[in-house]
């Protein structure tokens, strides 16, 4: 551990400069502008620019960079939400979020941690567009989670474990998320986007679609799920395999081939590395 002591003035200098960096931007004029007149006179006095206006202008470069870098990071982390909202509305939400929660982690991407939940809370109880926005935020968060997950060790259950599978719970891999969409949002997420204007909200699907999102050696993979399969996987997250099956049978009583389907779904789940282990 290095024991070097900083000069006594360094902390107060950095406190003044930091306040300039984090000074909120002004949205009132239809564009994001710095509020350079609000910078403290002490911070301005730190700058040797020769004239007061230039001192504030140079500090404003850092102030704007701070915010635009964070906004850019949040747009990258939540690309579907960005497309639905457009840049102006997205940035408005993002600034509100970031003003409450200044980043404390070194990884810039973590500045977006909690933003999806923040958007969902803002959208709660407000109509179809707001529900689509909340779903978009959940989808973006699912991608963030999968793409940031460590690679789990391959799950190869023993013959003994397989024999007792009915009484066991399958532990979902951290590199897997289940996604449901009421509108073709995943297509929207992959669509080209130059930023600025919101993309039109696509019409609702005849029935919701379910997917499993899992990481791959290249990037990620999306696999469509049958409705009963999605329900089964959802039940497996909270119940033993046997209990999940019995709960599924109650809602799928008219499906005579259910047992065969379940075997197939479990095999497919193993192949996709949906689970990282077994707990009892």
């Amino acid at each position, binding site marked *: 551990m290095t024991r*070097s002591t900083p000069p006594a003035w360094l*902390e107060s*200098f950095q406190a003044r400069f930091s306040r300039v*960096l*984090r000074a909120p931007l002004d949205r009132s004029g239809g564009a994001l502008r710095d509020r350079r007149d609000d910078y403290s006179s002490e911070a301005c006095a730190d700058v040797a620019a020769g004239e007061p206006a230039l001192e504030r202008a*140079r500090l404003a470069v850092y102030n704007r960079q701070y915010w635009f*870098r964070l906004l850019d990071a949040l747009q990258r982390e939540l690309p579907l939400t960005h497309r639905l909202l457009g840049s102006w509305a997205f940035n408005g939400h993002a600034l509100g979020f970031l003003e409450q929660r200044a980043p404390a982690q070194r990884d810039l991407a973590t500045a977006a941690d909690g933003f999806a939940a923040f958007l969902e809370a803002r959208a709660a109880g407000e109509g179809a567009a707001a529900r689509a926005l909340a779903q978009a935020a959940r989808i973006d968060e699912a991608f963030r989670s999968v793409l940031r997950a460590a690679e789990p060790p391959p799950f190869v259950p023993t013959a003994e474990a397989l024999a007792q599978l009915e009484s066991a719970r399958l532990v979902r891999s951290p590199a897997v998320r289940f996604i449901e969409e009421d509108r073709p949002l995943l297509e929207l997420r992959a669509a080209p986007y130059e930023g600025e204007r919101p993309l039109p909200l696509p019409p609702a699907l005849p029935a919701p679609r379910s997917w499993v999102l899992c990481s791959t050696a290249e990037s990620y993979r999306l696999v469509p799920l049958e409705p009963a399969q999605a329900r089964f996987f959802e039940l497996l997250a909270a119940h033993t395999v046997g209990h999940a099956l019995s709960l599924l049978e109650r809602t799928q009583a008219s499906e005579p081939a259910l047992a065969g389907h379940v075997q197939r779904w479990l095999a497919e789940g193993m192949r996709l590395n949906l689970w990282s282990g077994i707990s009892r």
Partner: protein
Amino acid sequence: MTGDGGTLASGLARDAVGIALRPAHYRSLFADLPRLDYLEVIADNFITEAAGPRRNLERARAHYPIVLHGVGLNLLGHEPLDERYLDAVARLADRLDAPFVSDHLCWTAAHGLQHHDLLPAPYTEDLVDFAARRASYVQARLGRPFGLENLSSYVQLTASTMSEHAFYSAVVREAGCSFMLDINNVYVSSQNHGFDPHEYLAAIDFARVLQVHLAGHSRLDDGTLIDTHDQPVCDAVWQLYASAWRQHGPFPTLIEWDAAIPPLPELLAELERAREVRR
């Protein structure tokens, strides 16, 4: 610093040329495996357990030497260095057998908050001492050559008592580390603050230069130059580079491009220009 046969003590060829690897180029790089002496990656993007970045880094390492460039050391921050961060960078450097590691002569965080920017501090004798002790510690901790990069800056600070190049040189000399000299940054700061970039480069001990960075910049309406890394290297920076090469070369050279990233062939064309400038 320089070993036999025109190589650095770190093992990288003294006249090596490379690019800063960014995810936008993974596909082309892995498909074409272009002629490059080495790659540089942002260390902070790979000290993660996320599977994707690790796999891509391993694929790149299978074909090229990789040097590490950090943005989160916070060398000039008033708070203690983050030992967990240093551990992670050291482990990554070991895993890649990185010829060297570099970071910036700046601060990036204060009072528990990360600013995600490379921020200037006043150039003073007491800060030289503080920075040099920390840089020396970092180099020992990493167990390999450590280079400090000069900033692009948009302010000059009233508390400074020495020039930027004097401060930079003193920190490197006292720390016993190296320069990671960004010639675009020298140019940007020289235009913003009105100093002579040739005088700056003349003050650098090129025997201690681990690597030179080249990149593009932008100009604001008020004339301020911003280190955006979003366009080709400008002619004035090429001229500075050529002058430095004639007087002090060889040294490893790397092109950075971080925003509005062009297809890989365009970046490689920039690198070809670096090769031509040196002929």
